[in-house]
Each structure stands twice: as C-alpha cells, then as structure tokens.
C-alpha cells in the first residue's frame, strides 16, 4: 500500500471553521445560506452534517472549497483555517480562489465528491484520463506511474477489472460505479480531508450501504478526515464520529454521535429523530415536523425554528439563542438549556 504515513498526533485539528457567513445576493434579496457556523474537522474523524434540504450544507462545503458561484454567492465573514500537513496554517477565506495556493489545497489536500454521480464525471473523457489528470496535477509523476496509481485506487473502491475499466467512459458505468470512480479520483492524491456531499443519496440502498462501508474502510486506511453531508440520520449513525445539525443556515446542535442519538436536545433534532424510521425503535409512531422551513427572504426574528417548535417560549420568537455546552462536547443553541 502506497499510502503516505504522516506522523500526526491524534485528534489533531485539520480545519477550523469559525463563525462562517456565506450569502447569496439575488434579485429578490440576500439569502443567508450559511449564518455564523463554527466547527472543526479532526484528523481521522468523520464529521457528519445533517439538516433538511436548503439548510446550507452544500454551501458550507463549497465555501471551504472556494467553489461558490462568485460574485453572486460569497463568504461575507468568518474564517476557515486550514492546517496543511507540512505545518503552518492558512485562512482559506483570504485566498484568491483562483490562486495557485488555493488550487493546491483544492483537490490535493481537500477533495470533494458530489451528490449526482450521473453528471459529476465529464462524458467526453475516460475515467482513467480524469483520474490521471488529478494525479499529475498535484504530484510530480510520469503518466505511467499516474496510471498505475489510478488503477490501484480504482481497485480500492471495489471497481472490478480496473485495468480495463480505466479506459471506459462514464456512460459505460452504472451510477454506483461512477460514484466509486469519483471517490477514487478524490482519494488519488491522498487528501487529508474528503468532503462528501450526499455521496449516496442518488443510489439505491444496497449499493449505498456497500459504498459507505468502503468509504469508512478507506478513511481508516488513509487516515483522512471526512466531512459527510447527508439528510439521512441512518447514514450518520453508520459513518459519523461527530454530528452537526443545521437549520436554515445555522448550527442548532453538535455532539458526539452516540451522545446525539441517545440524548438529542434541540427540539428540531428531536423532531428529526421522530420523523424517520430507525432500527431498534420499532413500533414508535413516525411524526413529521409540523409546518415548513421559513423562506430565506422572510426569516422570523429570534430562533428560526420557533414557528414550528412545540416547546417555543416567548423569548424564542424575539431573540436568537446563544450556544450552550450542556454536556462536555455537546452544544445546543436553544433557550430551553439556558
């Protein structure tokens, strides 16, 4: 195995996001897609991010990658500090997104895979060419070595006959295989962080389970961190070490995965758990969260969840709650825990 060994202390912080605010400037007004979110990504850990559609999960990821459709959408404040393996630190928000420095981080140190496996590979280039392109971009190797590495990494993501498949085009592969190829491409440069934006949402359940297990294995093997975006709490339970729950651009709760599943604190998190079927909780009635997500152009004052919250108090409708650390490492933004 050619994985580079890095001597890093456990729990080392690779990425630190502080009070990130990302906004879209549209004709109808400003959309606060990410509104003051903070978290850290630690070496060898999987950070899960959950939340309903539109709560800003993808935009958080794209902010880190600096792939926002600027100038329409941009980071307006906050810091994203990346600690490269060679030492030092760099604030990604301050880099020019086209600069060589940002491009070295993108793909080399932080790789990303997307939700839509059917469209995330270029139809006119072979799988091999697309992976080899990434390898040769970031590593000083000849084409033959890059090709060997591409076959190796395709093999690692369980694509059969990689030496043959490498010459195929995306349309010759199934959705699951394409997503595996995407993962292979992301891993090809030994990134320290893999951002996976709903990597299996578009796939059927059995393939989803296989790919997730494979990702988990490779994550351990490569010793990398994963930021896993999903709206599926089942996936979170299977994959994550730590979980961050988002609602309309804000972080509402953050905890260790066991702690969150055993003891969800925020009424929104509790609602999420009540609204999905979870193994082991058979016989419980499923209750969807009442009401709907507020329009980003017309947000209520105070806590954004207050209008839907069964336990809302007067203050909830007036003032946004601060973040409280209820247990060590268990954070919640809710007036109930003041």
């Amino acid at each position: 195995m050619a994985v580079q060994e890095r001597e890093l202390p456990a729990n080392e912080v690779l990425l630190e996001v502080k009070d990130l605010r990302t906004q879209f400037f549209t004709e109808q007004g400003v959309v606060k897609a990410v509104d003051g979110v903070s978290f850290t990504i630690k070496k060898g850990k999987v950070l899960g991010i959950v939340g309903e559609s539109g709560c800003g999960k993808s935009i958080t990821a794209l902010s880190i990658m600096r792939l926002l459709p600027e100038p329409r959408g941009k980071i307006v404040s906050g810091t994203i500090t990346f600690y490269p393996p060679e030492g030092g630190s760099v604030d990604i928000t301050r880099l020019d997104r086209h600069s060589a420095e940002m491009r070295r981080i993108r793909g080399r140190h932080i790789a990303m895979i997307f939700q839509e496996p059917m469209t995330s590979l270029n139809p006119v280039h072979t799988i091999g060419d697309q992976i080899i392109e990434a390898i040769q971009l970031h590593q000083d190797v000849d084409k033959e070595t890059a090709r060997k590495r591409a076959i190796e990494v395709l093999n690692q993501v369980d694509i059969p006959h990689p030496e043959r498949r490498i010459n195929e085009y995306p349309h010759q592969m199934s959705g699951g295989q394409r997503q595996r190829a995407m993962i292979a491409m992301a891993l090809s440069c030994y990134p320290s962080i893999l951002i996976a934006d709903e990597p299996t949402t578009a796939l059927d359940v059995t393939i989803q389970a296989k790919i997730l297990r494979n990702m988990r294995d490779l994550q351990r093997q490569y010793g990398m961190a994963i930021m896993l975006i999903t709206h599926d709490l089942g996936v979170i339970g299977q994959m994550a070490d730590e979980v961050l729950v988002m609602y309309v651009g804000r972080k509402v709760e953050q905890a260790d995965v066991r702690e969150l599943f055993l003891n969800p604190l925020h009424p929104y998190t509790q609602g999420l758990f009540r609204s999905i079927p979870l193994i082991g909780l058979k016989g419980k009635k499923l209750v969807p969260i009442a009401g709907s997500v507020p329009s980003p152009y017309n947000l209520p004052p105070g806590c954004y969840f207050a209008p839907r919250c069964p336990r809302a108090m007067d203050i909830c409708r007036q003032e946004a709650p601060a973040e409280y650390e209820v247990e060590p490492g268990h954070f919640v933004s809710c007036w109930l825990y003041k």
Partner: protein
Amino acid sequence: MAAFIGRRFISMLITLVLVSVVGFIVINLPPGSYLDVYRAQLMVLGTSTAEQQIKALEKRYALDKPLYYQYLKWITGFVRGDFGRSFQYNREVSELVWNRLGFTVVVSVCSLVFSWIVALPIGIYSATHKYSAADNIFTFLSFIGLSIPSFLIALVLMVISSRYFGMSVGGLFSRAYENAPWSWAKLVDFLQHLWIPVVVVGLADTAGLMRVMRGNLSDILSMQYVQTARAKGLPERVVIYKHAVRNALHPLIMNLGMSLPGIISGSTVVSIVLSLPTCGPLYFNALRSQDMFLAGTFLVFMAIMLVIGNFLADIALAMVDPRIRYE
C-alpha cells in the same frame, strides 16, 4: 470507430440514391419542359436539321423510353460527369458549373472559417464573462448583425472600399485578370477581392454562432462535471477549454453539417449584389427559367453536400463525444 464510419457511410450512399431519385422527379415535374420550348423554337425556324436535332436530344435523354429508364440514363451520365445540357445557355451543364463550383466552395469555406474563428472566441469570452461590459457590447453587436441583411453590409463595404481605398469592387477579379490564366498577380488580385464576400457572408453566420456558443457554454459551465474539474484544483483555463468547450461544441458541429449545402447555394443575394461568379445566381436563374438539367444538377450537388456534411458532422461528433461512438 471504423464500424461506426462504415455504418454511416452505407446509410449515406442509400440517402444519396434516394435524393437523386427525388432530384430527377423534380426535374421532370414542370409540365412543358425546356425541351418542348426548344422543339417549338426549332420547328418555327423550320430548318431541315431540326427534326434530327430533336431526335438526337430525345435519344440522349431517352425521352421515348419509360421514366425509370430515363432516370438510369441520367444518373449513369451524372456519375460520369455528364450532367445534361443547359437549354438556356445552350451549353453543357458541366461546362457551366465546375468553375463556379470552385469559386463558390472557396468563398463559402473561407467565410465559414472566418465566422468560426471570430465567433467561437467571442462566444467563449461572453459565456465566461457573462454580463460584463464586453459581453454586453458583443451581445448588442450580435443583435445588430442578426438584424441587418447581409446584402446591405455588402453594399456598405463596397462603397467604403471603392471610395476610401480606391479598390475595384464586385466580382472576384479585376477586369484585367478576368480571363487571364492563373499567375501570382492574378492570385493576389483574387485575394484582394475575396475578403469582401468572405466577410459579408461570414458575418451573417458569426452573430448567430456567437449567440449559440455563448448559450451552450454557459449551460455547460453550470454542469456538475465542470465543478468536479474545479474541485480537482485545475486552473480555470483548463476547466473551460478541456472540460467545458468540448462539450459545448456539439450543437455547432451538427449545425455545421447542415450548413454545407449552403456552401453551394449560399448567399445568392449577396452574390448577385457583388456580382460573384458563384453558383447562387446561376441556380437562381436556372430555377426561374426552368432550365431543368442545370437546376437539377445544382439540386443534386446540394443534396450531396448535405449528406456529406452530415456524414462529416457525425464523424466529428463521434470524435468529441464517446456516447455517440458507442451507441
């Protein structure tokens, strides 16, 4: 790829046969063909050879035989280069068309290349700098280009080049070289005349091509795989040219296949205005005066160009898009 080309080639041949049949029927459609007119003229003249001449013509075109026989006779002649006779000019069609075909192809191909060379970079720039000042200016210019008829541009350019540059305008040669054999001086003279029709004919397509390229490319730029390419850390230039432009070329290549027949019939009005010795005006006249073999020859030639154009476009498409190759 070879199998793909083979399959396309066979279907191209079949199409050509069908087209020649239709072409022949069209030639024979007008009641009272030119031959009848010709016969009447000869009768009136009452020369002793009239009867013989008409007999010869009837024999040549097998007019006394059934239609399918006439077709076979015509088509076997056609492939050997005997396109029949133009009654209007009283000359063999082949004598009339080859020269003009040559000039037409030169003018059309040059203007095609001109419009692609101008339109593609502008389209790419506009798509990647949407709503910038330059993009807005190009958009404005392209709408003007789309709405001004090209013969008007031809007239304006003629006036400018004759008044301010003292050049002889119209035609493809100065009078002195018109019937001279080819020489360096004649070639230079030809090139000096060529640019006006090339620019005029080319501009007509440039505006449209620019808009199509801008639209395609901006669609493609919003595709997920373009984001994937960026996420790899590729420079924006590589993202655009390697991952986006190639996918944006599809409709243009298809369009190119369709525009090949235009190379022959192309821009008749401009050719008339600029008095170019190209096919357009000749075809136009042939149609007006029911000069059936002349018109039919052009018709078949255009069909051939269309079929060949589509054949080439298919191959080009297959080269840029593996999905078509493996269908």
